[in-house]
């Protein structure tokens, strides 16, 4: 059974990445899992980097 989609929040600015919606403007198709986002991706609102700043699972 597939895992339910999760959401991640940028601790710096509150931007929410929802795996179900992806971030098409950044080239992340709907359904893109957090683990599958490239390590050089950064928060599209504030620039916080995935590898440098923790993002929290909120749901």
């Amino acid at each position, binding site marked *: 059974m597939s895992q339910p989609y999760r959401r991640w929040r940028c*601790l*710096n*600015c*509150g*931007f929410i990445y929802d795996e179900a919606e992806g971030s098409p403007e950044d080239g992340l198709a709907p359904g893109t899992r957090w683990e599958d986002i490239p390590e*050089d991706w*950064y928060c599209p*609102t*504030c*620039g*916080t*980097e995935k590898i*440098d700043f923790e993002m929290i699972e909120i749901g």
Partner: protein
Amino acid sequence: MISTDLANTISDPRAYADGDKVDAAFAAIRATAPLEKAQPDNYDPFWVVSRHADIMEVERQPEFFHNGDRSTFLSPRESEAMVRALTGEPNLIRSLVSVDGKEHKDLRGIVFPHVTPRALKGMEEQIRVIAREFVDHMLSFDGECDFAMDVAFLYPLRVIMTVLGVPQEDEPFMLRLTQEMFSNADPELNRAQKEVTPEEGLQNLAAVVQDLENYFGEVTKKFRANPTEHVNSLIANGMIDGEYLNHRQMMGYYIIAATAGHDTTSNTTGGAMWALAERPDLLKKMQDDPGSIAGFVEESIRWVVPVKHFMRTATQDTEIGGRKIAKDDWLMLAYQSANRDESVFDRPFDFDPTRAPNKQIAFGYGAHVCLGQHLARMEMRILWEELFPRLKSIELSGKPERTISNFVCGPKHVPIRFSAN
């Protein structure tokens, strides 16, 4: 309703210059009326959002709380009317902090990719060279200087002007106009060099903005003719939906980048030195563990709160912190208060660089979070990394003074005595 005394205090530029007075007022508000309406003399009523969590809740919903529907900073009733008469808009300057929705996103997108942590890594060495220059400058004072005037106002200015592409010979002009703009209520730094009424202050402010627009008009011509990677060139050549920015968008962008881009960092740098000079053991701790400088920077941002508030306007009936907010209500996001919120910060009135995590909210939150935050952190970290190893001791040599202002401000004089290694 918040008492008139408290309402007058949190809107009074002199209370922010005092420091303790405004902190005591906000502590009382957090304890007794954390989300209530205030109506200081000469102002329209507004909600005071004093708690950290409520500010985050407002900033998380930019569609319900607009920046640009009314004045973005606390403005007396008559001043706001005068601005509308002058510009047809509620704000004198149409900048990133006074626009919403698609316009805000589009404008922000012009500069954002160039100020991410990754983009800024390429500037680290260049900024370190500037930092060393200003450390040498400080040490040339032979043991005593006014750190605010002699270093803190100048180093972030050089950094941001380098990023923008402004020649060094124009730095004194940019510093003077920035201080005239943000320190409009302070007789030492404003254009009139005296106490002014709000109406006179607004007239002076309009004259400052006109001087800045005249300057930046030439900047546009220069960078359209020869585009570079400087931020001013990005603004001059930036396009939204295939069109250059309109006059007010472009001028607003230049002005906010050039003024807020250094004054906030200058205030924080000066306040950090003030905190350091009052705590004899702190310098050695930083020297023994340079990795702790990042925590020192973050705590100094929490401590100084260089932007005291921003205002928002509700776009519809809604609810925050259990209170019903009506459409068109005006709200003060009191960062000065939120960064002292006892429910978030243990011992909020202690300067503690070891806070982890440090949830300071001085850069704001959500879509309008400060565009230059990563540059600000980086340039302050580099300055302290360069300065601390060269100092043997540091202490205050007189009484520091804060600027008289209720908006963007911090220390204007930090007299120090130091010995170098």
